[in-house]
């Protein structure tokens, strides 16, 4: 009798345990870095190509970056340059530029002021802007380009390309001309 009652209790406990079991509320895992985490559109789509100066050292692409470069400056610093693409307008100029401004402790600005200070350029991909953000107080700066890739009738943005580097004011001024040439060289290659 004692063994039956114990067995019964064990079975009931198992039943209740299974009934009450829930998945963990926090899950953590790793995924391999691939070319793009935002789209899996890697196979038939045209690839971006560019011409970089010889001393720019290309790093392996990560999931959010199409490409990265390490760039040495005259004073021995290493500047990181990233190229990323996102579908659509990726939030637009104002949102992205203000996000970068926050990263170097600058207050946000409205779109009119942002565009007034921007440098308008054109390349094989069309017209785009270069933004130069400087914080003189903490000597941090960002130089970035936002290049929209439009559809055939120029009516909507299929994809937006971001090229960005950050570092000290002086280092980025040294690399600014190379940055501008690099942006101009970007094109689609089938």
């Amino acid at each position: 009798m004692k063994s039956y009652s114990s067995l019964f209790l064990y079975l009931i406990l198992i039943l209740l345990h299974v009934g009450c079991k829930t998945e963990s509320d926090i899950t953590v895992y790793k995924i391999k870095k691939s070319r793009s985490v935002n789209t899996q559109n890697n196979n038939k789509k045209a690839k971006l190509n560019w011409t970089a100066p010889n001393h720019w050292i290309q790093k392996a692409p990560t999931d959010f970056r199409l490409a990265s470069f390490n760039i040495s400056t005259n004073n021995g610093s290493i500047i990181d340059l990233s190229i990323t693409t996102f579908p659509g307008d990726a939030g637009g100029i104002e949102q992205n530029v203000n996000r970068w401004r926050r990263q170097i402790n600058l207050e946000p600005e409205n779109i009119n002021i942002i565009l007034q200070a921007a440098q308008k350029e054109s390349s094989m991909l069309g017209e785009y802007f270069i933004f130069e953000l400087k914080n003189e107080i903490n000597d941090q700066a960002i130089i970035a380009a936002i290049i929209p890739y439009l559809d055939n009738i120029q009516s909507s943005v299929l994809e937006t390309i971001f090229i960005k580097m950050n570092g000290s004011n002086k280092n980025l001024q040294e690399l600014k001309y190379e940055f501008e040439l690099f942006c101009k060289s970007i094109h689609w290659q089938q």
Partner: protein
Amino acid sequence: MKYNFNQIIKIISNPKIFVFTIIWLMVLVFVGTVEQKDIGLFAAQNKYFSSTIIWFYAIPLPGGLLTMTVLSINLFSFFFKPNIWNKNKLGVLIVHIGALILLIGSGITSVFSKEGNMIIIENEQSNYMHSFYYKEFTILNLDEYQDSIEVINFNEKLFSNEQILSYSNLPFQIKIEKYFINSKISPRENDDLLPLRGDAIKFELKEKFPEKEMNENISGIMYQIISEDESVNGYYIYQLEQKMPEVITINNMNYALLLRPARTYLPFEIKLEDFQKTMHPGTNIAKSFSSEIFLIEKETSRRILIEMNAPLRYKGYTLYQASFAELQDGREATVLAVVQNYGRLFPYISSIIMCIGVLLQMIIRIPGLMKK
């Protein structure tokens, strides 16, 4: 008053408990089915069948989960009744075993099953499904590991107000301010919380009444980042269909934060080779559609056709051809409904066992009936 084991079993296995629980389940099914029209299938399921207690005004009533638990215990206890294990009751025992298997299967399904959909554009591939119903707050640790991204997901169950989300490997915490199952975004009208960051500077989230169909809800979350970096600390908002994640940088490491449908990664990948649809003649209504896919696992792949009424079953997952989508740039995408249900065979097994039990009991009883 002391009870011995047999007396306890007698109380628990009382057939009246079985009858009342079955009647109550029928009531729940009726009420749940009627209310489903107004609140949707998922909400009705959660309210009536997955709950422990249902509140009828201030009166607590047993929900489906509690009722099924009582029913299971009642059936379990049957096997411990004295003198039950004899050949004259073999058929009854087998029927009870069949009923228990059905309940066990339903328990396995409710606890362990997963369902969602995979949307795959032609010539692209995917290895995960999105949940139809549940969301997760995801933080992607982009830079710490060279060859991989660390993904930290916080289940929707944690999205109560003031809840702190934290993980040992992150240099910041997330405090949930508000979470809405359905939300709308509108221009900011007040600045009660400061500092505001990102979209929260110009916009705020407001709650909308949930839609009946869960996939029509646009969830939204307002959260606070707490860290040692004051330039990052502040209040952010994120709505489910936002294009870009919020990317923050702390100690030169980038983290992406987003709210998304809960993902389940599959042990294989599916690449959509070709999607075909046949329309009813003279209409734009699809008659049938099929997806020619490559099932990719490790280094090997094989070509498979998934059609309506011909799903793919592989490694415990069943992939059904559910729907399709046409993108603005003319490309087509297939929508596969994916189900992982370890308990799917239990109803068939239990039905067969119960039929065997009923037949057996009839056979056992025939000689006695003939004598009469």
